[in-house]
């Protein structure tokens, strides 16, 4: 299915005017090295907030999957983190600590993220991707503390919104076929592309990571899209809030079970290491933290 066909289908269902933006991002390189930021003249196609990620093998040499035979299929991914405005439109209330329509939603569990994706699909007339059985106890959930434990299954043929897989996230964050093998998503300098403990508060912090410093500096999330995008035109894949992903976290990037779900990207609290392309992390699915949000994806 072509991009135009895909979104024509959705737009007919929504009876909304098709919004197709062809965005040329001319990144000012004043004070920045051309080899240390994303494409200087990047033409990307953003459709209803989503970017088509052309699949293939991993090009980024810093990726965990560089040189492997893993091939990623084409998929769509949100140009931005899900904002609080977008969340409230679907869910009706805002759980975020740092309230602002344009900031990423946070303080949501993995289960909340699943329900959001399904509800957004329903509102858009799309087939929900996830089947959620709240009465069963998931045997693949190895957490001792998670008392939610819903059984959530994935319909890979559904056309609705979903969380990215960990492999998809790493592929998109590393720039896909346009990758320049940056350490962070879009740059080797995190300050260019992401919010983390040094730059998320009132002053730029030096020294080592120290929570009281960060707290006294009023560290917090920032409105999405304020830093430079990566090679594919995607914003905030390093920093701001960490992102819930579909997979269990395990040695494999496609684990069948685990204590927690994969999370990626690092956030405003972290020291920046977690914002690296290859950095893997996890969180038990029931946790809700003010530096943990989501980004949506869809099948092509």
């Amino acid at each position: 299915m072509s991009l135009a066909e895909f979104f024509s289908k959705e737009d007919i269902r929504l009876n909304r005017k098709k919004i197709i933006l062809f965005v040329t991002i001319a990144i000012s390189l004043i004070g920045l090295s051309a080899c240390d930021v994303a494409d200087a003249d990047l033409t990307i196609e953003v459709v209803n907030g989503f970017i088509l990620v052309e699949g293939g093998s991993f090009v980024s040499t810093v990726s965990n999957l560089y040189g492997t035979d893993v091939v990623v299929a084409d998929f769509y991914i949100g140009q931005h983190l899900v904002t609080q405005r977008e969340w409230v439109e679907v869910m009706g209330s805002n759980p975020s600590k740092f309230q602002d329509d344009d900031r990423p939603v946070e303080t949501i569990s993995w289960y909340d993220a699943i329900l959001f994706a399904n509800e957004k699909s329903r509102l858009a007339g799309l087939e929900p991707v996830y089947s959620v059985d709240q009465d069963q106890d998931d045997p693949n959930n190895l957490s001792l503390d998670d008392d939610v434990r819903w059984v959530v299954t994935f319909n890979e043929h559904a056309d609705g919104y979903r969380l990215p897989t960990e492999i998809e996230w790493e592929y998109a964050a590393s720039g896909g076929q346009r990758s320049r093998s940056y350490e962070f998503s879009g740059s080797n300098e995190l300050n260019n592309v992401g919010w983390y403990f040094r730059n998320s508060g009132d002053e730029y912090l030096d020294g080592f990571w120290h929570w009281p410093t960060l707290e006294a500096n009023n560290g917090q999330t920032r409105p999405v899209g304020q830093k430079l995008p990566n090679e594919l035109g995607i914003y905030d894949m390093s920093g701001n809030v960490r992102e819930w992903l579909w997979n269990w976290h395990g040695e494999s990037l496609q684990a069948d079970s685990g204590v927690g779900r994969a999370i990626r990207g690092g956030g405003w609290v972290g020291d920046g290491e977690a914002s690296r392309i290859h950095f893997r992390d996890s969180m038990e699915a029931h946790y809700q933290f003010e530096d943990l949000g989501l980004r949506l994806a869809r099948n092509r």
Partner: protein
Amino acid sequence: MTKMKKILIAQMRKVLVAAILSTAVLGSAAPALATLDFHQNWTSDTLNGPANGTSNGPDGTATFRSNMQTGNFSAEWQTTRANSRFNNLHGLGWATGRANRRIGYNLGFLEHHSGHQGMTIGAFYGWTRSPLIEYYVLDNWLNHRSTPGTLIGTVTSDGGTYEVWRANQNGHNINGMGPFVQIKSVRTTPRPMGQNNVITFQNHANAWASMGSPLGTEWSYQVYIIEGWESTGRGNATVWELP
């Protein structure tokens, strides 16, 4: 001898005397490995203190002097109003830690002048990932040493006995928010001040592993710090790495 030669010889003598004095003063406290690569000078008022200078804020002031080359730093701090929650932390260390690091330090002095609920400490401190652990080797404390968590054993190292306390925390950490383990070796008797002390960190890492809390495989920063919490005090320390 010409005047010029006399001046030259006098200058050479000065350089020689300075070198001898420098060696005598530093003695074995001179950094064996000049690997210190960053400093922290922080107060809850001013956030980014200079490497050398005074920070003034509504709750307190702190003066910090540091020399990355010699490993020496000093701090003097004062709360300026009652019931303030003034917190200050100063230190020198390494951006990347390791289990087999042996450090020498000389805590010239550490004083807790006031703040009956507060505390003042000298400690070796850092983080690892995989698993995520915040660790302390707490050699000196003044006023009190409240330690959260569970006493899980003791370890003998560098001529003293340490209690090992472990706490499961859930909050802010170097990765973001979430669960992590905090583990502390707390020396039962504070180390003497004004003399060279050694921390053989491997002994602590091994003990913690034997108690079920192995440190992670990825190393974040590792520092020697002087910290004051709701206190007025001062301290001076020199830290260096041993082979």
